[in-house]
């Protein structure tokens, strides 16, 4: 309602949550069907009940197995975290945009692009994220060896790369303050690396050059992160100020984490850590730097004892950071993964085990296992497709999910009554009557020609809706009735038409007449129009009536344009859908 302010959608909007749950339920049905078909195919081809977990991993290099199973579990956890009901609306504003807030403009553009795609189809995008990540987890979990397993690794790397760049703002590597302790350079970058390694031929794990290079890469990464942690001027050596308030990077992060909703025991532990880190920042940061550099040097040395010791120290550091600084990665807002430390821990173990348990070139798995792997991989790919296909089709078709407009304004209301006859003029002075519009579907709204907020937006929604109708536009008339008791003259509606470039619409009529005639229409259609004093714009209901070609009102839509372009686009999609129903 112009003059009454507009609202946006909350993360927990019940319409959105219900639609998300419905999409997940339908996806679950599809997944069950996929699983049954996969089992049936395997039965038909092999005559046995499949046991993809039994024995299929035999011969798989240990280092590879650690990465595969570990990241499989992480993908499943990530997929389950995506089921949170706040995810469809909350992810762009609470996860994507903050991840790039301090990054350069081009990174923010990349993230904004992803956020825009998500915002236009939030239900399908959120469901897609669930099924893609569960599908990848199942793929890595069930398919142990062979080309199908490597394909799973490649798929995992590809999706992780999307998450790291678009969803994670490149892990903050282009932003100031990058720190391994705070999640940099992004857990998904470690997923990308794991996926790439899993996509390589299994034989590489027999090569000392490869497993040594893998350990050295991990070591170099930790040394670099250690140097960054020690770099002066980045706040890592600072503690509390004179008033005991945390100003250093570590105590500030821990202190912020301690204030998020979480179990009391954990909050107390994290708060105590923040206090301690704030009072002895040199000790804490120095220990972290030494640990990172020391662990890195241990892996770089490739010496078995040094690597073992580095692994133990590294795992201890990862556990402490995960608990006291990253707050287990699950608290502090809309969590999408358990943060960097679990992935780093997997890499510490996998790289050490790959060195320690370097095996001869494995033999090809038996036929039974290859068949099981193929069926399981295709099944897992189908689970991924359950999420990807609807989201891709909807995005490729353009437009916005009408559910957003319904969530904000309520759904369309069915009505059935004859239109009130009127005789008014449009901005050009041409007479327009309800009878002259007979034979067309009529979308009629009420606009204030000098409204500063909603009305120009509603007019643009009508334009977008008309454009989306394409050839069927000729069967629809768009009508706006002047809704301002002071500024309602023909000159005013003509000026509004010119301002909003509405005269290019073939069947657009912004109509007006005597105040008495307008008041008769306002009253009949339940539109309250007032002009309060003291600087407020005129107030009227944002409402649109749809009339069928015989001149009967069939649908009423609340037309509040909302606070974002996405909501406006959603209303246009809803209007189009309703007009389409009346045209059929």
């Amino acid at each position: 309602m112009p003059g009454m302010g507009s609202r946006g959608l909350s993360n927990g909007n019940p319409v959105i949550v219900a639609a998300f749950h419905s999409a997940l339920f339908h996806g679950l049905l599809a997944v069950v069907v996929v699983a049954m078909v996969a089992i049936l195919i395997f039965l038909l081809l092999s005559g046995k009940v499949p046991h993809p977990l039994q024995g299929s991993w035999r011969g798989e290099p240990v280092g590879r197995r650690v990465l595969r199973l570990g990241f499989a579990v992480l993908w499943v956890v990530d997929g389950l975290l995506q089921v949170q009901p706040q995810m469809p609306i909350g992810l762009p504003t609470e996860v994507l945009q903050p991840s790039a807030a301090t990054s350069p403009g081009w990174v923010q553009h990349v993230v904004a692009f992803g956020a825009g795609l998500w915002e236009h189809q939030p239900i399908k995008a959120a469901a897609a994220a669930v099924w893609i990540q569960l599908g990848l987890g199942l793929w890595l979990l069930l398919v142990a060896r062979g080309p199908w397993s490597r394909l799973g690794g490649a798929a995992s790397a590809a999706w992780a790369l999307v998450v790291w760049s678009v969803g994670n703002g490149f892990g903050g590597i282009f932003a100031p303050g990058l720190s391994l302790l705070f999640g940099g350079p992004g857990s998904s970058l470690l997923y990308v690396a794991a996926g790439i390694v899993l996509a390589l031929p299994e034989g590489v794990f027999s090569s000392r050059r490869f497993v040594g290079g893998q350990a050295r890469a991990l070591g170099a990464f930790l040394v670099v992160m250690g140097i960054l942690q020690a770099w002066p001027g980045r706040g890592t050596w600072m503690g509390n100020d004179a008033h005991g308030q945390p100003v250093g990077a570590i105590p500030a992060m821990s202190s912020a984490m301690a204030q998020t909703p979480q179990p009391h025991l954990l909050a107390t532990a994290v708060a105590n850590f923040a206090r301690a880190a704030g009072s002895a920042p040199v000790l804490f940061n120095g220990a972290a730097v030494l640990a990172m550099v020391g662990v890195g040097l241990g892996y770089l040395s490739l010496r078995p004892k040094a690597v073992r010791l580095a692994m133990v120290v590294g795992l201890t550091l990862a556990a402490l950071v995960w608990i006291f600084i990253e707050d287990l990665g699950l608290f502090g807002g809309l969590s999408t993964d358990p943060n960097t430390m679990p992935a780093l821990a997997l890499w510490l173990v996998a790289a050490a085990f790959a060195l320690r348990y370097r095996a001869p070139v494995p033999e090809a798995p038996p036929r039974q296992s290859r068949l099981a792997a193929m069926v399981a991989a295709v099944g897992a790919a189908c689970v991924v497709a359950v999420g990807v296909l609807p989201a891709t089709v909807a995005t490729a078709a353009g437009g916005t999910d009408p559910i957003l407009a319904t969530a904000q304004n309520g759904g369309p209301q069915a009505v059935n009554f004859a239109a009130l006859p009127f005789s008014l003029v449009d901005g050009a002075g041409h007479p327009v009557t309800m009878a002259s519009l007979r034979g067309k579907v009529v979308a009629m709204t009420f606009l204030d020609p000098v409204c500063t907020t909603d009305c120009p937006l509603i007019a643009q929604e009508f334009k977008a809706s008309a454009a989306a109708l394409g050839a069927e536009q000729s069967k629809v008339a768009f009508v706006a009735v002047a809704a301002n008791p002071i500024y309602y003259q023909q000159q005013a509606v003509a000026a509004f038409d010119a301002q909003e470039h509405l005269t290019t619409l073939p069947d657009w009529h912004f109509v007006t007449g005597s105040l008495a005639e307008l008041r008769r229409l306002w009253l009949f259609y339940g539109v309250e129009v007032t002009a309060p004093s003291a600087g407020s714009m005129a107030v009227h209901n944002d409402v649109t009536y749809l009339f069928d070609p015989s001149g009967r009102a069939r649908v009423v839509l609340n037309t509040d344009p909302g606070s974002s372009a996405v909501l406006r686009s959603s209303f246009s999609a809803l209007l189009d859908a309703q007009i389409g129903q009346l045209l059929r």
Partner: protein
Amino acid sequence: MRWWGRAAALGALLSAAVVVPPAASGAATSPWLLDASSTGGTTALLTVAMGQRSNPANTFGEVFALNPSGQLRLVTPTGTATNGGLVLAVDATGRSAAATMPSASLHLTPVAQASPGPGPWKSALLPRALLGAPGSLSEGPLGLFAVTSDGQLLGTKTGWSWAPVHLSAARSVATRCGGTLAAVGQTASRVLVGLSCPRPGTWPLASPAGPVSVAGGGPTGPARCLRVLGTPSGFVALVAISGPRPSLVVLASNDGGNHATVAPLASLTPGQSLRSTAISTSGSVAAVVDGVHGPLLFVRRGGVLTSATLPSGSQVAVFTASGSIETVATKAGAVVVSAPSGSRWVVHQRLSVALPYGSSG
């Protein structure tokens, strides 16, 4: 190079690459203030911004009328949001106009007219955006004239149309001083166009006959005409001169507008800035200047220059129909009117306005 040497070199290289300095932020620009008053005949109108000044959606331009006894009353035209502020115009007969500046998604200018003012208002519409300056609208015997934000001059009696006759002379002055249109006014027989002239040496005022002839030399710095108003014998205009010695001067004509004399109103010292202006068809001009020690009032009336310290928070001064002056201060929805009493300012009226917070969100 050993492995640790390579690692150290790689570490230093990558560390240097990711230590990114923060981006510099741009300097803010301050908006032009629309607080102003106009007095013509027995009609005295003032407009002032009220509400939460830090939030444009909750800042409202309000119009008040001062009756001959010095009492203020709210007369803001209804029917449109005033978050962008208002511009007032009054002539010697009391004919008045109040244009609501476009704001948010509106790019048109709703106009309310009254004859004689103030109110009841009759609605009109300028189908373009008005220039955001207190002198961009003129009401008078020749009709309603407006300077638009795209540098055009429009005039009306029955409907808006271009005013090429009045514009051509102004354009020649604008070309000479590298300037743009900034204000409009009218005498009984001619339209006067004020300009903003970045190039020193040219007085920023033109009539259809050409540049207005001003006795003495030209301005020493860039000059901007803030207000111009017809008087019974000619016109009066307020001009701001910037540069190393910023000042406010008054141009006045007593021969129907052919020639003008220049007289100082105020020299602005560092830390002082113009807050609002007041002008009257009797030829009086005033300016409220924000200073380090509070607001100051400079008045030129009947050839006499006076100045005074104003009560804290004073935003705008207004000439009453009898020629005296009052000042108005606002805080949120509260309005305080003060008048001089001896060497002091005495509050003689308080009123409150129910501001429609949240109505333009």
